[in-house]
């Protein structure tokens, strides 16, 4: 069976491609380049490295790599870089992408399979790109009777909310998008949006199975929100601050909080699994029971965005675990104080503390993410009544135990008075 058009000619296809490239080149040279020059001429550019940036200078910097360094250095101090690149979205999305790939291979090895294998020759390394292209190419089907604005808005809101959590997390000393004093409180405030989005999206789908899934998501997230917050409360009692950077610094001054509060860490881990809707807590998406839960009516890139959002959320919660219990970016120094590279000198960009912090933070976060992936290979799905019982009875009691431990440590003068950070 031929799937290509009847009058398909390969030569014509190649010829059309060449024509396309030709016209693109013509348009770029005749319209694009003059346009760039006009813009560069009129837009006032910031002074970089003591020189006013003129179009001429800009082009020399593009040609000479050593002269690009000041521009990059300048960019790295801007908020845009923080938001879009390093502790912000690109870093989170990159980790999410690696997580998806690692999860598939890791689970495959656990289940005596090979996992993705063909895309990209080396162990299916490009599988994610292939999947992404497939999702983009797919038609987005909206059920008749669906609430269209809500249906379109929910996936974008989901990703945006996940990215908002990422914005509050310090990845390296000084590298945080929003360093607010009530950072931990803000994290929980933003996490509170997720059940709302799930419920609104499921209601907007105008279908039965998504509705049941949305209600389940709501029940589950409310049941685990309280132990989630209570387990973080003991950390706040110990460190004496709600600022996430402050929490990390207080751990650098003493020990990691997981040694003082192992039960809190356990409760936090279980609650974050429930928050992430991962197996064994994937009830809102329970496939054999309610088709795909609140994702039933999603298709194409709407599904892709929701998946991206949930993996960014996985990164955010794993990073939060690292910040609260595993000492954030703390770790032995492995980088030299200065670097010398041949050809292009990146010394002005190099920051020993930031590089070291990023390395340890990334390693720890990946460790926690792997721990979050593990239950998927060994556990069946839990039932909703057992889940609610676990959340409301067991987890809350467990998290209270460590609150008392933290209070005893503080008021017994075993740790610093009024929190570790206060000196």
């Amino acid at each position, binding site marked *: 069976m031929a799937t290509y058009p009847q009058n398909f000619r390969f030569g014509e296809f190649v010829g059309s491609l060449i024509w396309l490239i030709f016209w693109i080149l013509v348009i770029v040279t005749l319209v694009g380049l003059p346009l760039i020059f006009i813009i560069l001429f009129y837009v006032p550019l910031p002074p970089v490295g003591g020189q006013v940036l003129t179009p001429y200078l800009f082009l020399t910097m593009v040609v000479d790599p050593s002269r690009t360094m000041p521009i990059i250095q300048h960019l790295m101090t801007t908020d845009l870089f923080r938001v879009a690149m390093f502790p912000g979205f690109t870093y989170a999305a990159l980790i999410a992408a690696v997580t998806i790939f690692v999860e598939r291979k890791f*689970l495959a090895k*656990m*289940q*005596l*399979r090979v996992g993705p294998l063909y895309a990209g020759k080396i162990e299916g390394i490009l599988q994610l790109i292939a999947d992404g292209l497939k999702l983009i190419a797919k038609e987005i089907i909206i059920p008749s009777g669906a609430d269209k604005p809500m249906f379109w808005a929910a996936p974008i809101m989901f990703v945006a909310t996940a990215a908002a959590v990422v914005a509050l997390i310090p990845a390296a000393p000084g590298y945080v998008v929003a360093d607010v004093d009530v950072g931990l409180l803000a994290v929980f405030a933003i996490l509170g949006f997720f059940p709302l989005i799930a419920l609104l999206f499921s209601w907007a789908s105008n279908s*039965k*199975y998504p509705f*049941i899934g949305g209600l389940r998501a709501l029940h589950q997230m409310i049941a685990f929100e309280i132990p989630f917050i209570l387990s973080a409360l003991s950390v706040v009692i110990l460190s004496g601050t709600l600022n996430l950077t402050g929490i990390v610094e207080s751990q650098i001054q003493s020990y990691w909080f997981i040694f003082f509060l192992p039960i809190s860490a356990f409760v936090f881990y279980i609650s974050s699994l429930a928050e992430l809707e991962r*197996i*064994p807590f*994937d*009830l809102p998406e*329970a*496939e*054999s*029971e*309610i*088709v795909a839960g609140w994702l039933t009516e999603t298709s194409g890139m709407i599904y892709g965005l929701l998946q991206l959002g949930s993996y960014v959320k996985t990164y955010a919660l794993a990073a939060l675990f690292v910040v609260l219990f595993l000492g954030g970016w703390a770790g032995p120094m492995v980088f030299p104080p200065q670097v010398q590279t041949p050809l292009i000198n990146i010394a002005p960009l190099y920051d020993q503390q930031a590089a070291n912090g990023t390395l340890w933070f990334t390693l720890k976060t990946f460790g926690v993410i792997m721990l979050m992936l593990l239950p*998927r*290979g*060994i*556990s*069946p*799905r*839990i*039932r*909703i*009544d*057992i889940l609610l019982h676990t959340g409301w009875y067991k987890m809350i009691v467990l998290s209270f135990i460590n609150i008392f431990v933290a209070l005893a440590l503080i008021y017994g003068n075993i740790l610093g008075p009024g929190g570790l950070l206060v000196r």
Partner: protein
Amino acid sequence: MTSLEDKFEESKKLGLQIVRESEEDRLMTLSVGPQHPGSGHFRFTIKVDGDYIVYCDPDPGYVHRGEEKMCEYRNVIQNIPHLERPVIHDSSNITYSYSLAIEELAGIEVPRRGQYIRALASELNRQVYTLYWLAIYGIFLGHSTMFMWPTGDRELFIDLLEALTGARVTHAFNIPGGVRNDIPDGFKERCLRQMRYFQKRLKEYEDIFYNMPLFRQRTEGVAVLSKEDAVKLGVAGSVVRASGVPYDIRKAEPYDIYNEIDFKVQYMKTGDCFARSYVPFLDMQESCHIIEQLLDKMPQSGEVRAKLQPNPKGPPGETYRRVESGRGALGYYIVSDGTPKPYRVKISVGSFRNMLALPYLLVGQKLADMPAVYWSLNYWPVEADR
């Protein structure tokens, strides 16, 4: 203090369009199947009140293929390949009882070596079916490792059967008069090695699935089918054995050489979801012992198939023979009018009788237990529809 009734009357006087909620308004009707990932080729309508199922109406028939009618237009040998289509994973067992019935009608004596090989093929096929069933049970409960492991190990049994019969799933191996061909060289050693490996794997299954606390929580005490109800509903196979009735056709009315084999009928007394999911697993362990014994006791040489006429036919008459398949008693009622083509063939399958227990078990359970209860009934929709 005004009661709800007064308020309702009052609102009527004010001209408000208030409609009282009826009992039916609380219920949500869900159609499970045939496009639902937890149903198979089968549909049942359930009504849920909150999270509880209050009504269940099974609706089989999506894969009805008229196997029984097709039998009337073909002679007895031509019938074999299409008769195994209802359960391709258990194809040796579904042709086993057919062969037994035809042999009784036509008065054919099967050689002893043929009987042993026939039993061997059907035991191997039982393993294939049960592994597939277990894989689906695993994924129904969200346990993806339990889907992959049995599916992978099933491949090894399929390889064995391929060496034995020449086909991977639809063997057409058990025929009236014996089996199609003798076992290949070195099959016994290969098969025994396989069994040793598989028994080790079964322990791992138990560790990762049956002994998992979350699995126990989900299945223990769920959808209990008492001994009396099980007998009254006429359920078969692992379902009736899980309710405390040690009934196995291989023991109750031994066919071929099964009376020479030493094996236990595995049964449990609780009758809950866990027992129904655990009895097939115990059967797999028992089946391993049976296969080892069959390979030991098999005559070293001899005929494997009785000589038949080109078109075997017997005197007019009727017969009913059954075997223990992966899903319980699987019987054939065949009426012959003396011609090579059967006059009437009726297939009696365990799946259909197990499906009848579904509405009784599902009502009162939670929606989350629906796949666990449904698949614990050891039901194969295609076989039930025939």
